[in-house]
């Protein structure tokens, strides 16, 4: 329960970061640090249990089907890393409370607390799936903490994300492999599985994957590039994440999985070589740096390299040393980061070349800095000395030939010499050698005190390092799984090889300190011609180039090429399939009387019309032929015994023609002519497709009896629903979910039209006539002179529509009644929501056509209201059915005054509204025709689209949707007048 309680308290800290930062701003760090101490107190029973040899755990099933649990378990390393995360976290929060700008700083505290939660979750997790999720959460949190630091952090955070996610993917692969091989998601059980001994090849593969994951977090070569990048984040983030927590997550992972791999040679070699190489490389690059924070970042890279190499050795002595150095490093490095933040605050620079001489002004800071550096270089009596000695012992302990250990020790010693070098550079460069005379601000006492705590702790801990014996023994036990090692740490071991090496390092370091000015210049030349970010940049550019080369093989802006591929595939599939079918099987005989004489007449007429659509170069003629096909289709559908479908087809056809005509007025009169060869080729493809389609229909249709579904609907509909019109009942009751989806599609089509049109600027959407490359001169037919009826009929639109206007007065009410009747009788006779809505739309169409010039039908926002209202009503009906009958969209029946009413009529009403909304959008937006020369002052399309969302406006807006300011913002104004809209900020 202690484990769960700890995580609970940490979750609470995430939630409390909202009110605390609102109340106290940046000083919310103090109460949050208090909460971390509470969490530590709650965690204490678990620590005591671990010390007394138990391993407290807690489990609830999470995804029982896959055996995934939410499992927590505390053991030696879990406890060590949890305590590091909690205690350093508390310190950093105290520091941040003074360090950060006096603002609310919600995102800082929110992400930091989330990070701690996921970090502690990671180290206590006993389930690999849960562990992986916590692992990724730490990646995301560290990404966010870098990204929130403004412009310099942008690219850096993306690079960090890239690198850590590569590691995440490797870890995920490893987890999947382990789970599939060991058949358990429990970390403890998986590590005890015999497979690691019996199948070293599998162990090597998984080990390499885990190592890559660990390297990516612990900033090992070549993943080390993200850590200096991450220095864009503010100092408290670096002090916590980049010294004590997120990089230690990588170390933790390697330690956690060490029991499985530490006998595996691949693992040993990979870790030792990478670790030592990184240690040397990091230290060498650190020498180059003049920015204190970047110097510390590379120093972290180097120190972590030493730890990784020691973990790779895999013996008890090595792992105990690794754990001890992890603790020591977390302490001195977080302190040093905080010290750099303090210098930054005092001098407003972190660059050594611009540093004033600080040691006289800030003796205490200098002392703390020296102590921290002493711990890092491993001077006695600091904790760093003991841990580095232990590291050397661990490295010497390598299995195999004796020279391996000595080689490893030599590498570590080289890195340590350079460590001494950059520590000298940091302490002396930062405090002694500066010459700049910039203003030095006074130190804020809390910053110094908080920064000094972890550094100063190194002294007593170094003297009394024996207190760690039990704890680290237990931690090492968890990483080795072979008996309990009993390490004895002490400041003085008596003369030994390690001590001699340390003495040499210190001697060389002192030489370095003496000749430092001459040496620095030599070291500050860059080692490589490019740095990590540039390398990633090259990589990204290369990937992009390869990607665009690959896509260019298939990418065309015009759709014909893609369509040829699709149609061609269909032809090949049908052709091959059908010929096989004819050759291999005998088709069943046709059933019933499939052909009627009138079908032939229709075939002839349809063929003529289709040819006419295809051949005509005039847009108008093609439209007329197309509508002829539509009408003939209607007849065919009626002949097939589908009155509802036929009615729908007829109405849709007439509305389609109106919409096409609206569009045509803005397009050239004729189609572009195609070359003959292309036409022939297209015709051949089209002919083949037609033959295949015909053959397929002939083969597959009409060779069975009416389906069982048809029998069911025809016999049961009346009894189940009380309706006679089976098709309508299917639409609104049996398959109402389909219809709901369909009316949503309709509505969204309307919304999509609005959305697209309002993202295009008005000058591009409706180019002015002078700038329109597609514009053809207005046709000037040979007419009789001005004043004659023929002249008037062409040039004055108004008299043309008088007749229609009179007719509309009588016809529209009639249509309204018809629409209502069709709606009401839908259940029992041809009609229903769709057909009624289409008749209603015809009213709209007639109203639109009967005006002499383009004019919006209905209030501007009505179409979207109708669409959303329709969908809401339909969904609401469904929910009503769910509540009343326990099934979504189940219709409810009732009788009101003898009339049979069902809730499916309400559903039909939703259908009605959505259809009408789409039609209104189509007419109002596609019909807008401001720029015809004749009516220069009409409404433009963009204005209509804006009005659909914003209500009545005096002109189009000059911002586009999806652009910042995305909505009508403070910078928005009308294109025509330059005025601002009435309600800005909406």
């Amino acid at each position, binding site marked *: 329960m202690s484990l769960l309680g700890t995580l609970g308290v940490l979750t609470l800290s995430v939630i409390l970061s909202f009110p605390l930062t609102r109340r106290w701003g940046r000083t919310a760090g103090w109460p949050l640090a208090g909460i971390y101490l509470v969490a530590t107190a709650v965690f204490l029973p678990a620590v005591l249990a671990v010390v007394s040899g138990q391993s407290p755990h807690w489990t609830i099933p999470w995804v029982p089907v896959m055996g995934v649990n939410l499992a927590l378990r505390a053991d030696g390393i879990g406890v060590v890393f949890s305590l590091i995360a909690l205690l350093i976290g508390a310190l950093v929060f105290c520091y941040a409370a003074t360090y950060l700008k006096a603002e609310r700083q919600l995102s800082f505290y929110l992400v930091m607390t989330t990070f701690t939660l996921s970090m502690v979750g990671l180290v206590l997790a006993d389930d690999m799936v849960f562990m992986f999720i916590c692992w990724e959460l730490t990646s995301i949190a560290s990404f966010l903490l870098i990204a929130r630091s403004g412009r310099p952090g942008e690219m850096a955070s993306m690079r960090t994300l890239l690198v850590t996610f590569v590691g995440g993917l490797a870890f995920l692969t490893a987890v999947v492999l382990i789970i599939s091989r060991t058949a358990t998601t429990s970390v403890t059980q998986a590590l005890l599985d015999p497979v690691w001994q019996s199948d070293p090849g599998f162990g090597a593969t998984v080990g390499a994957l885990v190592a890559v994951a660990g390297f990516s977090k612990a900033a090992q070569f070549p993943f080390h590039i993200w850590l200096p990048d991450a220095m864009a984040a503010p100092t408290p983030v670096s002090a916590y994440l980049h010294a004590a927590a997120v990089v230690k997550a990588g170390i933790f992972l390697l330690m956690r999985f060490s029991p499985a791999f530490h006998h595996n040679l691949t693992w040993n070699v990979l870790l030792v070589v990478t670790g030592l190489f990184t240690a040397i490389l990091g230290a060498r690059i650190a020498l180059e740096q003049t920015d204190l924070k970047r110097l510390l970042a590379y120093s972290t890279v180097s120190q972590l390299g030493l730890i990784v190499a020691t973990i790779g050795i895999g013996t008890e002595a090595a792992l105990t040393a690794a754990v001890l150095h992890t603790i020591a490093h977390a302490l001195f490095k977080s302190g040093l980061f905080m010290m750099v933040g303090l210098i930054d605050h005092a001098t407003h620079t972190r660059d050594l070349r611009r540093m004033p001489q600080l040691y006289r002004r800030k003796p205490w800071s200098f002392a703390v800095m020296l102590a921290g550096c002493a711990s890092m270089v491993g001077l006695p009596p600091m904790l760093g000395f003991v841990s580095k000695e232990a590291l050397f012992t661990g490295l010497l302990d390598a299995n195999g030939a004796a020279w391996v250990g000595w080689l490893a020790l030599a590498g570590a010693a080289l890195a340590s010499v350079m460590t001494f070098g950059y520590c000298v550079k940091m302490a002396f460069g930062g405090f002694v050698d500066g010459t700049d005379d910039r203003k030095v601000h006074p130190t804020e006492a809390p910053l110094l005190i908080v920064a000094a705590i972890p550094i100063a702790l190194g002294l007593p801990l170094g003297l009394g390092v024996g207190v760690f014996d039990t704890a680290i023994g237990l931690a090492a036990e968890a990483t080795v799984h072979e008996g309990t090692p009993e390490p004895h740490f002490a400041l003085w071991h008596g003369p030994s090889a390690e001590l001699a090496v340390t003495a040499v390092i210190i001697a060389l370091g002192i030489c370095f300190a003496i000749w430092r000015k001459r040496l620095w210049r030599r070291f500050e030349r860059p080692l490589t011609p490019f740095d990590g970010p540039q390398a990633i940049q090259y990589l990204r550019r290369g990937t992009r180039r390869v990607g665009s080369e690959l896509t260019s093989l298939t990418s065309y802006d015009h759709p*014909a090429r893609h369509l040829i591929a699709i149609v061609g595939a269909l032809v090949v599939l049908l052709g091959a399939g059908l010929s096989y079918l004819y050759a291999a099987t005998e088709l069943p005989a*046709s059933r019933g009387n499939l052909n009627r004489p009138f079908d032939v007449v229709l075939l002839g007429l349809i063929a003529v019309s289709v040819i006419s659509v295809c051949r005509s170069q005039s847009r108008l003629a093609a439209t007329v032929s197309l509508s002829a096909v539509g009408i003939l289709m209607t007849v065919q559908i009626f002949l097939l015994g589908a009155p509802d479908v036929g009615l729908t087809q007829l109405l849709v056809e007439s509305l389609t023609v109106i919409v096409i005509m609206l569009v045509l007025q803005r397009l050239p009169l004729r189609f572009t002519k195609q070359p003959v060869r292309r036409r022939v080729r297209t015709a051949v493809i089209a002919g083949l497709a037609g033959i295949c389609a015909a053959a397929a229909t002939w083969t597959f249709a009409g060779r069975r009896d009416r389906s069982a579904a048809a029998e069911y609907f025809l016999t049961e509909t009346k009894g189940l629903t009380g309706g006679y019109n089976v098709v309508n009942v299917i639409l609104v009751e049996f398959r109402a979910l389909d219809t709901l989806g369909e009316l949503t599609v309709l509505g969204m089509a309307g919304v999509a039209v609005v959305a697209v049109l309002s993202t295009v600027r008005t000058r591009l959407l409706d180019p002015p006539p002078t700038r329109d490359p597609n514009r053809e001169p207005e046709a000037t037919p040979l007419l009789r002179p001005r004043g004659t009826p023929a002249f008037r009929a062409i040039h004055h639109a108004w008299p043309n529509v008088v007749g229609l206007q009179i007719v509309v007065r009588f016809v529209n009410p009639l249509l309204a009644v018809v629409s209502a009747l069709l709606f009401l009788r839908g259940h029992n006779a041809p009609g229903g929501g769709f057909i009624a809505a289409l008749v209603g739309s015809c009213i709209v169409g007639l109203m639109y056509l009967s005006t002499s010039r383009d004019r919006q039908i209905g209030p501007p926002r009505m179409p979207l209201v109708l669409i959303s209202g329709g969908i809401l009503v339909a969904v609401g009906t469904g929910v009503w059915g769910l509540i009343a009958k326990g099934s979504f969209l189940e219709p409810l029946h009732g009788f009101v005054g003898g009339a049979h009413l069902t809730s499916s009529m309400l559903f039909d009403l939703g259908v009605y509204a959505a259809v009408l909304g789409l039609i209104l959008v189509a007419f109002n937006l596609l019909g807008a025709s401001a720029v015809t020369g004749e009516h220069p002052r009409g409404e433009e399309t963009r204005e209509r689209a804006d009005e659909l969302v914003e209500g009545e406006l005096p002109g189009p807006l000059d911002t586009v949707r999806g652009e910042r300011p995305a909505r009508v913002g403070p910078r928005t104004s009308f294109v025509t007048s330059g005025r601002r809209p009435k309600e800005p900020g909406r």
Partner: protein
Amino acid sequence: MILAITIGVLVSGGVYLLLQRSMVRMVFGMSLLSHAVNLSLLSAGVPGWRGDPLTDRTPTALAADPLPQAFVLTAIVISFAVTVIMLMFAVLGHNDDTYRMPATGETRDR
């Protein structure tokens, strides 16, 4: 089966138009294709039975299969929505040539 030939004619016309340059012709092609698909859906319900599926007027033994009819009814309305969207794209910048991109103010390489 004559319906099969009708479907073939419609598909040919549809595919021919779909492979043209002009967006409006492609829209017409889509219309013809959806006619063809609607007919083939209806013929999947066996065109031997052609009575209206209104149970109070047509004997059950003669009625056509109502299920494909319901499908086709929704298909017709959906194809109308598709037509509207495609026509909207056709008039962007008063240009329906699919070989030339209409200027929309977007940079292409995003």
